[in-house]
């Protein structure tokens, strides 16, 4: 399969260019923007829903973007096993679209959280995490969100754990998961999950902002390299 990332541009997306830059200029992958009003995925093998404030976050985060024409194509692509990654607002859109379970509510601090966090990788046997080295106790990746407090009922949380769908949890530098390092109140410190089939992933932290060595952090590369290696091999 050809490796090509399609980065969806919604009105109010503001990490679309960051994603494009990191994938094309830093990692040297093929990338193309996909306009929200189009329905053509342009032969992309991976769809990336970027961060931002699609439709001004009106009503609920991601609620209106979910009905963009491009999303019908993204949903059928995902249902056929296509690889989809949603970052921050992209994660919120995947939740609203029902491609991932649960909901996102306001950070328990009520503050917009913008800082580097550490993520413990809970499952290295996924498309999105296979290349994360065992030596990496925790990935250092920034967050920037006001509504990243992941909420699911007890049954769903049990299901997520049983199916190993929890991919990343907020932790300290050494990968210890605790309340002090939970930046938003997410249940079980959840920062990223995959769907049951393992082809759709959502995460609140921004791996595309942790790729260029000039910025002093490159852990995000491991996530994109995992996806690329999966497709190329």
């Amino acid at each position, binding site marked *: 399969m050809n490796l090509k990332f399609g980065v969806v541009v919604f009105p109010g997306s503001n990490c679309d260019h960051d994603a494009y830059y990191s994938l094309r200029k830093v990692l040297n992958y093929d990338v193309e923007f996909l306009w929200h009003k189009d329905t053509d995925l342009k032969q992309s093998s991976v769809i990336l829903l970027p961060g931002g404030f699609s439709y001004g976050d009106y009503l609920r985060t991601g609620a209106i973007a979910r009905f963009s024409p491009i999303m019908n194509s993204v949903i059928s692509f995902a249902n056929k096993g296509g690889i989809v990654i949603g970052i921050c607002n992209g994660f919120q859109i995947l939740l609203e679209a029902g491609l991932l379970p649960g909901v996102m*509510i306001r950070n328990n601090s009520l503050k917009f959280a913008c800082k580097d966090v550490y993520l413990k990788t809970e499952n290295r046997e996924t498309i999105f995490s296979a290349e994360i080295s065992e030596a990496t106790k925790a990935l250092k990746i920034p967050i920037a969100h006001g509504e990243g407090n992941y*909420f699911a*009922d007890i049954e769903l949380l049990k299901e997520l754990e049983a199916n190993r769908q929890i991919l990343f949890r907020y932790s300290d530098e050494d990968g210890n998961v605790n309340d002090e390092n939970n930046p938003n109140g997410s249940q079980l410190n959840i920062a990223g999950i995959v769907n049951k089939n393992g082809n759709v992933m959502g995460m609140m932290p921004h791996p595309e902002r942790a790729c260029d060595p000039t910025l002093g952090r490159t852990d995000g590369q491991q996530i994109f390299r995992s996806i690329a290696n999966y497709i190329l091999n």
Partner: protein
Amino acid sequence: MFKATVLIKRRPSILDPQGVAIEKGAKHLGITNIKSTRIGKLIEFDVDLSDRNEAEKEVNLYCSKLLSNPIMEDFEFKLEEVK
């Protein structure tokens, strides 16, 4: 034509960090007998239909598909005929 008023409430099982914070403000004001503050949404719009059943169907669809997220919210609405 109908005027619709939709009330969207967060389900009791879902935390409301905003409600908790507002209640802290109330305590600072000296208002101490307030409990369980919850934030919801009130949405108003017109429905350009003359049949009440049809209008209810349309509003139900709007509420369940877009205005509320059934995982965390419940909705109720009333329709008032306008001439």
